[in-house]
């Protein structure tokens, strides 16, 4: 099953490679990854989405906890959480002029924004959960998508205090 894992780490070089290595060493793919500093500039938050056997993901989470620069690991999948991603989608409006109107209509429905336009393209920005982003992409497909860039997912627990999953409750470090 899918897991969204939040990993709070020290903001140092090499840490991301160590974290990613724990997945690749087990033949696991990272579906999406996002990294940025937190409020405290000395720490970064890595959000990883992976799909896999619960037992192996549990093992990876325990291994993550062992990395010296990792401060905290939370498997958000098991807690109530919000998750979002942003996509920038460039569509071709060259072939049929009515595509420009169609794009604006679809944008409205999804509350996406047109952030750039040229005589032959529109670039749309959408933020939402994965379902919403994918629905939009599917609708725009017939119009001709020239380029697509997605940020990967970020996620946050709804009530921080309640995020005690079986992974971090009984998982001290070694």
């Amino acid at each position, binding site marked *: 099953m899918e897991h969204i894992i939040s990993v709070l780490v020290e903001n140092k070089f090499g840490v991301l490679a160590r974290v990613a290595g724990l997945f690749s060493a087990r033949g696991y793919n990272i579906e999406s990854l996002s990294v940025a500093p937190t409020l405290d500039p000395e720490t970064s938050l890595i959000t990883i989405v992976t799909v896999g056997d619960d037992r192996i993901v549990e093992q990876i989470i*325990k291994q993550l906890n062992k*990395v*010296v620069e990792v401060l905290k690991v939370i498997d958000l999948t098991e807690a109530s959480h919000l998750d979002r991603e942003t996509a920038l989608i460039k569509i071709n409006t060259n072939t049929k002029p009515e595509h420009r109107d169609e794009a604006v209509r679809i944008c409205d429905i999804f509350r996406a924004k047109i952030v750039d336009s040229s005589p032959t393209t529109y670039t749309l920005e959408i933020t939402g959960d994965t379902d919403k982003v994918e629905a939009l992409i599917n609708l725009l497909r017939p119009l001709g998508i020239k380029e697509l860039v997605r940020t990967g997912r970020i996620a946050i627990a709804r009530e921080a205090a309640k995020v005690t999953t079986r992974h971090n409750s009984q998982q*001290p*470090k*070694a």
Partner: protein
Amino acid sequence: MKKTGAEIFVESLKQEGVDVLFGIPGGVVLKIFDVLHQQKDVEVILTRHEQGAAHMAEGYAKATGKAGVCLVTSGPGMTNIVTGLADAFMDSVPLVAFTGQVSTNLIGNDAFQEADNVGISRPCTKHNVLVKDVNDLARTIKEAFYIATTGRPGPVLVDIPKDVSTDKAEFKYPDKVSLRGYNPTIEGNKHQIKQAAEEIMKAKKPVIYVGGGALFSDAADELLEMAELTQIPVTMTLMGLGSFPGTHPLSMGMLGMHGSYWSNMAMHHADLLIAVGARFDDRVTGKLSEFSPVARVVHIDIDPTSIKKNVHAHIPIVGDVRSVLKQLNVLLRSLDGNANERKQQLKPWLGQIEEWKRGHPFKYEQDDKVIKPQYVLEKLFEITKNEGIVATDVGQHQMWAAQYFKGKKPRTFITSGGLGTMGFGFPAALGAQRAYPDKLVMCITSEGSFQMNLQELATAAVYKLPVKIVMLNNGFHGMVRQWQDLFYEGRYASSDLGKIPDFIKLGEAYGIPGWRAEKPAEVESVIREGLKYKGPAILDFQIYPFENCYPMIPAGGPHHEMVLEDPPDLRSGAKKKPIEEKEGELPA
């Protein structure tokens, strides 16, 4: 006054109480070696290969419990220690490896002898760091030793660019380490320990299953107390050997692929396993789906990733083995400390184990024409009276050593378990010998493994490290040949080495004397001569080349389906095989 990075390095080692390091110099670490050369507190043992340096540091660490230290140059120096790092990582050996790196302004430029040391070693170290500023050096070294030796021990690599060793900084060795992300759990959870104690007192067929974790945490006394208090029999993994006296009536010896019949049968029929610092490795469990089918599992380990990795634990206890056993023993004493009552309760179980043991002891057919390897080890064990330290290489001889050297004390049986590194034994023995110059240190090896690091004969000779090299010379990659006999219809693909070279002559080239035994009658005198000699010596036992190591659980098989001896067809097959030895030396 400011000090150079090289001076800071040496001062820091002194602060850590390091008395010896193993290594080889090179361009980017010359400054460090130069400073080392001008002081006496930290001895430098110049090895003949960096792999040797890494294994010597491991041997030193395994024998003492202190961190072993090696220092090598960038590029090829570093890549040559990778096997040692991986070995130390698998067997939780506290090792601090210092590697030289090209100057910071050249990093990433494909400079001469540049390698991404941190990148290469990442998956086989507990932690690693590139030091980019001389001001961080002392703190990084302090942290490296702390991380290597605490929690589940392991190798830590510190990469030092050339300019960091020549730049200057104020030296102040920190007295404390503060790492936000690293706090090993020592005390076990009280509630779980209580539950474990209750299970232990209830069990009718319990087994204590001990791994290397009991040795790192120095828990031998606590383990002995628990076993005697509860009268529960104890079996050990290859890495756990020595944690419990092998001659104790409650000891079942080693379990697993080449473990004792009775310990594997006990594991299979147990109703409770108390796993102590062990990790349910596949060489121990055999076929997982049929492993210990009815047992409940109490698993004590400092590393949470070991728990529930392969086998479900009903009562997981994360903590330092020694501290958990201490807490557990207090409870066990108060719940029911009466050994006699316990004995009554466990009588049928201990009786059953005794029966298994009587039925299928370790056995071999003695022969008066050819030397049996087991006979050599039995004699050696008898003559050395269980004193001294044994380091082994990897193969049949390793398994026989594990079976026949029974009375081990903690830290006296040094072997490469997790990685199974041929070539480990001899340098590891030298490291142990350097730690204990006055103890008898023996390297039990065979010609295949020995040839992987024999260049260290020079190190033994130059530093006068009196290791006794006990060579069970069968002219084969014996363990490979055994598998080929059993599973590949006796086709010896690349396992026949020939009894080459002549190790006695080889030893002579290094000024190391040797003795050879070709017949069983010569075994005892060769052992005695070799042991009497004051320096390093080679004891070359020309053993029967087709001896197989039993019992054996074929890879992936269950515990109760052990193979106990050569199948009849194989027996005749082996005998028919052409043997080039002189007529009459081998059975027809």
